[in-house]
């Protein structure tokens, strides 16, 4: 790519690329997002490429195959989309490649069996825009993901990339950019929800020799993958956002902190930065302006605490990720003690769109306190798992049942977990809650970075609380006493409950300890560490009491407190459980009720998982 030395050169290039794109007859997009990759989509991309060559519909005659980032509907993956027409094929196998190329690429027919079957209408959907999962979303930060090749800067430019940067650099003063972001009401989407404009302004006001901007791509929340999908799907929107932010606060050096567990994100962000630099979009005199700025990629070493801003900055400095007390904000004294703006991936990705489309447009979505949209990764016991983006203020019900398609057959909703290890579990009566920063916090959970994990009646809330606490014991940096020693003791108390060794005062002891951990810990990790316990304790106290008083885990998860039995009346004697049992604990003749031999049973729940009629129950 040539070096762009003026905004006109950028527009000229864009027009040129658009012209070339117009000449393309058909494009086959193969989703290579996190979910589809785990389903083998790379093989499908290869097979489609091979078939296109074989059937002579390749690039030389105006056809194109494009591997993209996450298209969103991971549950239905691997996904293949053919344009024009928004033709959407799901659960594609490599052996389908020949058919797809022959009938849809070469010809103009649809492969009926690969189209999405809407369980509501029982109709096949031709275009993905007809699928409820997509129809109910509003995509802003994720708008381009799934529609372009993340490794090709030309793709991003052809889709409007870096137009906002040119606009900011050549038609706005830095202060006007801050003012715009401020008025948009954009809030930090990494969890805290701090006003982005206010943060940028504090940075400008703080005294310092240099200023830094950082993109937090650590995404340590287990159960969240929005940032991974963004960095792997559209790195240039993140880079563009960072350059605009750097221009606004007067920074010349930026860092993208990506966790090493996301090797592809590291690779694509690095590639994106290198390409942008070659094109004159990073480095000295960006687009021929007076403004210079460059980005380095910093690979995290795998520590959840490094999602905390001061710990992340220590990690970028090459140190152990121990947080500092925040009585002086990191925006004033951050990286190498200089004023530093740190925003997460999604926040940066939203900035260019706001610059392009303006405050009114942005504020037309979402709620008064939380304008705009939010990306979520929807997972757990819900039908339509995937990556979604919705306006702030939609209800949890709409997300889980509207977009998510509800729970699996015969399962009932129990809770939804948001905010990761710093968040909490919300029960059914909170389903009509409008999802925004303030409402979720008020309900005892938090937005977090956007992980949303749906749990059904077979999830034990004490086990979930214990799971998160164990996670935090492991991930605490260990610097301060309440977090290091406190979470360890909290885990011990919870383990007593799940093992049936708890006494009646355990809950009071948990609450007292939790209060000190929250009040006295050094950083946000510790201060929010008791949230999973406290929120489940508040919403599902009965379940805790059942463990303590009746020594019974109603969900059948805590092994020492669970005994499975087969309900004679429900059992059809199909024999599936008998085959699934790893220890031969199940007896029974075909078509007659089966029984579990308690002395042999290891409570692995394999029988319950396979039973088609839910005859395996937790004994009372």
């Amino acid at each position, binding site marked *: 790519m040539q070096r762009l030395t003026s905004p006109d050169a950028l527009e000229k290039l864009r027009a040129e690329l658009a012209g070339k794109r117009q000449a393309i007859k058909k494009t086959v997009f193969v989703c290579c997002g996190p979910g589809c990759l785990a389903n083998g989509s790379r093989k499908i991309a290869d097979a489609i490429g091979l078939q296109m060559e074989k059937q002579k519909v390749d690039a030389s005659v105006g056809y194109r195959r494009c591997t993209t980032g996450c298209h969103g509907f991971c549950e239905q993956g691997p996904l293949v989309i053919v344009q024009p027409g928004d033709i959407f094929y799901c659960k594609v196998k490599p052996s389908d490649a020949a058919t797809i190329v022959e009938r849809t690429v070469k010809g103009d027919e649809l492969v009926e069996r690969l189209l999405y079957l809407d369980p509501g209408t029982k109709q096949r959907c031709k275009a993905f825009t007809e699928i409820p999962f997509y129809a109910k979303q509003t995509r802003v930060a994720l708008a381009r993901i799934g529609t372009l090749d993340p490794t090709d800067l030309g793709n991003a430019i052809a889709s409007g990339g870096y137009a906002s940067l040119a606009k900011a650099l050549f038609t706005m003063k830095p202060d006007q950019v801050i003012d715009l972001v401020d008025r948009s009401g954009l809030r930090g989407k990494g969890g805290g929800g701090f006003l982005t404009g206010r943060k940028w302004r504090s940075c400008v006001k703080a005294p310092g020799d240099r200023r830094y901007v950082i993109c937090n791509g650590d995404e340590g929340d287990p159960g969240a993958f929005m940032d991974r999908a963004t960095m792997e799907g559209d790195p240039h929107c993140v880079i563009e956002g960072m350059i605009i932010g750097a221009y606004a606060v007067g920074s010349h050096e930026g860092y993208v902190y990506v966790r090493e567990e996301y090797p592809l994100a590291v690779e694509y962000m690095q590639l994106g930065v290198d390409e942008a630099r070659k094109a004159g979009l990073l480095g000295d005199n960006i687009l021929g302006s007076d403004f210079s700025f460059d980005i380095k990629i910093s690979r995290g070493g795998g*520590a959840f*605490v490094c999602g905390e801003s001061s710990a992340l900055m220590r990690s970028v400095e090459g140190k*152990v990720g121990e947080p*500092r*007390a925040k*009585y*002086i904000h990191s925006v004033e004294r951050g990286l190498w003690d200089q004023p530093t703006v740190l925003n997460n991936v999604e926040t940066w990705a939203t900035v260019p769109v706001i610059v392009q489309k303006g405050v009114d447009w942005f504020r037309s979505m979402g709620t008064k306190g939380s304008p705009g949209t939010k990306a979520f990764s929807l997972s757990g016991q819900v039908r339509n798992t995937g990556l979604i983006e919705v306006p702030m203020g939609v209800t949890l019900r709409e997300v889980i049942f509207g977009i998510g398609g509800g729970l699996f057959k015969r399962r009932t909703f129990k809770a939804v977990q948001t905010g990761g290890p710093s968040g909490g579990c919300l029960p059914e009566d909170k389903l009509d809650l409008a999802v925004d920063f303030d409402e979720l916090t008020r309900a005892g959970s938090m937005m977090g970075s956007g992980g949303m994990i749906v749990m059904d009646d077979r999830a034990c809330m004490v086990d979930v609380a214990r799971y998160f606490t164990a996670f935090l*014991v*492991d*991930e*605490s*940096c*260990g*610097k*301060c*006493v*309440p977090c*290091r*020693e*406190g*979470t*360890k*003791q909290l885990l*011990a108390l919870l383990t007593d409950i799940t093992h049936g060794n708890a006494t009646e005062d355990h809950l009071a*002891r948990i609450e*007292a*300890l939790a*209060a*000190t951990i929250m*009040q*006295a*810990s*050094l950083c946000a990790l510790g201060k929010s560490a008791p949230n999973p316990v406290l929120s489940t304790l508040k919403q599902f106290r009965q379940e805790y009491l059942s463990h303590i008083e009746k020594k019974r885990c109603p969900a059948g998860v805590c092994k020492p407190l669970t005994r499975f039995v087969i309900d004679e009346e429900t059992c059809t004697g199909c024999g599936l459980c008998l085959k699934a049992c790893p220890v031969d604990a199940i007896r029974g003749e075909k078509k007659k009720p089966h029984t579990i031999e308690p002395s042999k049973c290891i409570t692995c729940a394999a029988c319950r998982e396979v039973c088609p009629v839910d005859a395996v129950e937790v004994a009372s």
Partner: protein
Amino acid sequence: MSTLVKIKIDEKEYEVPRGRYLLAICQENGIPIPTLCHHESVEPWGGCRLCVVEFRKKRWDSWWTELATACLYPAEDGLCVWTRSEKVMKARRTILDLLLARCPGSEVITKIAAEHGVYQTSFAKREGEDNCILCGLCTRVCDRVGARAIATALRGALKEVSTPFGEPPPDCLGCLSCAHVCPTHTIGHTEADGKRTVWGRTFELVRCSGCGAASVTREQVEYAVRTKNLSPEYFVKCDACKRRESAATFAGLLFDERKGGEGPVGPTGSGPSHE
């Protein structure tokens, strides 16, 4: 010159320099605040959380009351602080309860806990013999000395102070600064037959040419010569002998004066004066 600001501690007004840490202010004014991870030779750290105080301040549009560690909280105008409120004492008691569970054998912790009304831990006790509370003083002092021989290893509940690979530390000077700042006296060290052992490494002590006493290690001498531009001669005699010598010189001079010699002259030949 730093500006003075008015703050209130336990309902009493004080005028203090802006930005001075609350712990220092309290110590200067005789307000007792317990702390385990603070030492004047190193930067405040905020690890033990025992020095928490309750404060009230205006943040954005509303008033907040929160706990904060006095060691790290800078004084600002209008700050209201309570050092012994119910919330504070509750947090300190739980922290001491947790520390007591971590090192039930520590006399220091037992004593401070008892002072706060915690006589035994309500939590599961840790197995292990050491009384390390991970206050980080030893590693921070070691960094300050410049040896950087010890650091924390691992993280979370498994965190520990360690030498590289748990073996005798190659960069250690044997200066014992770590052992001296340790609030729970848990860094074991021995000294016998002109040898000192700490962190599993044995150091040879340099003997004073005067009295034969051994007080510094060869590594300390080499380090001081290398980094502080001191002459090796400086370490030939111990401080006690140097003092004795200079006293004798001084006394001699006075004696000479009485005999009608020249005016008093400063002590000579014993290198730069200590301290």
